[in-house]
């Protein structure tokens, strides 16, 4: 809950004129060593935070690019313990790390142990798209006890009543899903997304990060002044998947944030 001091994530995403960029990579994609290398490189590129995916066999919120990256990571034996090593190595670079995964690997690992180990690795917060806020205890409580932020998601379809509850239970930032649908690059962002940001602002002072579909410099321009941060996932993962360095894309996106 948003009592007390601002968290590390909150400060990192707090807008000061610019739009902040949150870059997503999948732990273990294409393998553990390379995902650490890429993550460290991105950490030093000027992004505000890095989101690290822990692969799950059935990633319902993800589109084809992140699904495939997760499959590759799983084939290389990536799991919660391995992903926490990746997170720890990247967090060592000083950039706030947010873990993104589904609830089943967390439950299977033991949620309390997961919270303690993530905190130990230097992780700042956790996003679990298939953990509805109504069902989030006791897991969310354990995460908070370990001083981890619990980032919940709102979507264009979220009712006003739920929006309020989600904002109340979020810390670090509120993740605004800009599109109805799964992750994956889109040509254009929906025109109605700014209304969603407005509704969220009515309920919270936390930074707003927009995500899903965001992939191009012109998207950054569109979000500048409306959201506090933009999460870019599939576009970056796609570069990595094709064996390319994602840094040029990230630099281009960062340039468009000002």
């Amino acid at each position, binding site marked *: 809950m948003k009592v007390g001091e601002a968290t590390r994530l909150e400060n990192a995403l707090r807008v000061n004129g610019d739009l902040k960029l949150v870059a997503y990579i999948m732990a273990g994609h294409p393998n553990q060593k390379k995902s650490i290398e890429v993550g460290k490189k991105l950490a030093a590129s000027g992004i505000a935070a890095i989101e690290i995916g822990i692969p*799950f*066999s*059935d990633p*319902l*919120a993800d*589109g084809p690019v992140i*699904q495939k990256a997760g*499959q590759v990571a*799983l084939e290389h034996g990536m*799991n*919660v313990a391995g992903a926490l090593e990746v997170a720890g190595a990247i967090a060592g670079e000083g950039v706030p790390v947010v873990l993104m995964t*589904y*609830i*089943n*690997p*967390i*439950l*299977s*690992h033991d949620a309390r142990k997961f919270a303690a180990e993530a905190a130990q690795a230097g992780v700042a917060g956790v996003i679990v798209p*298939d953990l509805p806020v109504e069902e989030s205890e006791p897991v969310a409580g354990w995460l908070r006890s370990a001083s981890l932020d619990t980032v919940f998601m709102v979507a264009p*379809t979220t009712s006003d009543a739920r929006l309020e509850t989600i904002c109340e239970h979020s810390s670090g930032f509120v993740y605004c899903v800009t*599109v*109805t*649908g*799964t992750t994956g690059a889109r040509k254009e962002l929906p025109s109605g997304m700014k209304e969603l940001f407005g509704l969220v602002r009515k309920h919270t002072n936390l930074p707003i990060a927009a995500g899903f579909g965001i992939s191009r410099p012109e998207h950054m321009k569109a979000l500048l002044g409306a959201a506090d941060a933009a999460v870019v996932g599939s576009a970056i993962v796609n570069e990595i998947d094709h064996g390319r360095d994602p840094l040029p894309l990230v630099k281009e996106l960062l340039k468009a944030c000002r």
Partner: protein
Amino acid sequence: MHKGADYKPIQNGQILSVWDTPQDPAADRIATGIIEGPGQTATAKQFEGQALLAMRMGKKRVIAETGAGQHGVAAATVCARFGLECTVYMGTEDMRRQSMNVRRMRLLGAEVVEVKAGTKTLKDATSEAIRDWVTNVETTHYIIGSVVGPHPYPEMVRDLQRVIGDEAREQYLSVDGKLPDAVVACVGGGSNAIGMFTAFIEDRDVRLVGVEAAGKGVKTGQHAASLVGGRPGVLHGSFSYLLQDGDGQVLPTHSISAGLDYPGVGPEHAYLHDTRRVEYVAVTDAEALAAFKLCTRLEGIMPALEPAHALHQAGLLAREMGPGGRILLCLSGRGDKDMDSVEIPAKSEASP
């Protein structure tokens, strides 16, 4: 959600008036039990309810996932009947082994989308349908084929599906004057079973038996018996029993029957399992196949491979009970669709 709609009026009258045709009786009385019968649209009566719900919500498009193809055919049938656009997600592997139902769906005007991801079976078809649903939710209603998925689906599908249990219970009382000793149904996601069991839950003397797919044997790891061989976990938005590895990754499943080939099970079954109101057992491919052949021979009824699992268990129960034992079996589908999966001998076999 479904309770907010004009639910009662559509529950029985309208559903039955749409589908109860004289040549398609709801129940065939055979042997020592009553078999809740495989009509043209087989497994379920929940589709009509969901299609009516879709229309009430103003949705013009319906999507569904299917394993055996029965659910897809049923969805395609109601959509054709009510003029709704229909898209069915089906794994590559299931399209191969249930090709007759693929053709039926297409004949009914549905688009069948091949799902090549993951295990290429029901689990991945369900994931893909959920992704479509969250993307097109403004225009689209997702008719889940079982009592799985996020709330309110398990509850809603049970409430619509329980028509079969209520009817069967009534028939037992009116024909025999008393309830059966045992009720047996196969369990994949578990919709036909929950539909049948719900009517009898309060009848404490009636033994309820759910039959999962043991595939090549639960010990081999090649099976789909979530309750018998799994542990608690979350898949497709509900917390239930799940076949998963030590890292919480969902495991591939195996069953000869596409409709049972699913690593999870409806959350209410998990509850009925934990409270021991229902006994859950698992029956292998080979046992189901033998029951499939036996039922075809003895009764002239070719069951689907899914309820063939339940038939095997009913046989065991019948032997245990002896003469006079009364078993209600949910014959949740017909076997025409399985002709390609079942090896038919070139010459007729000697009678057993």
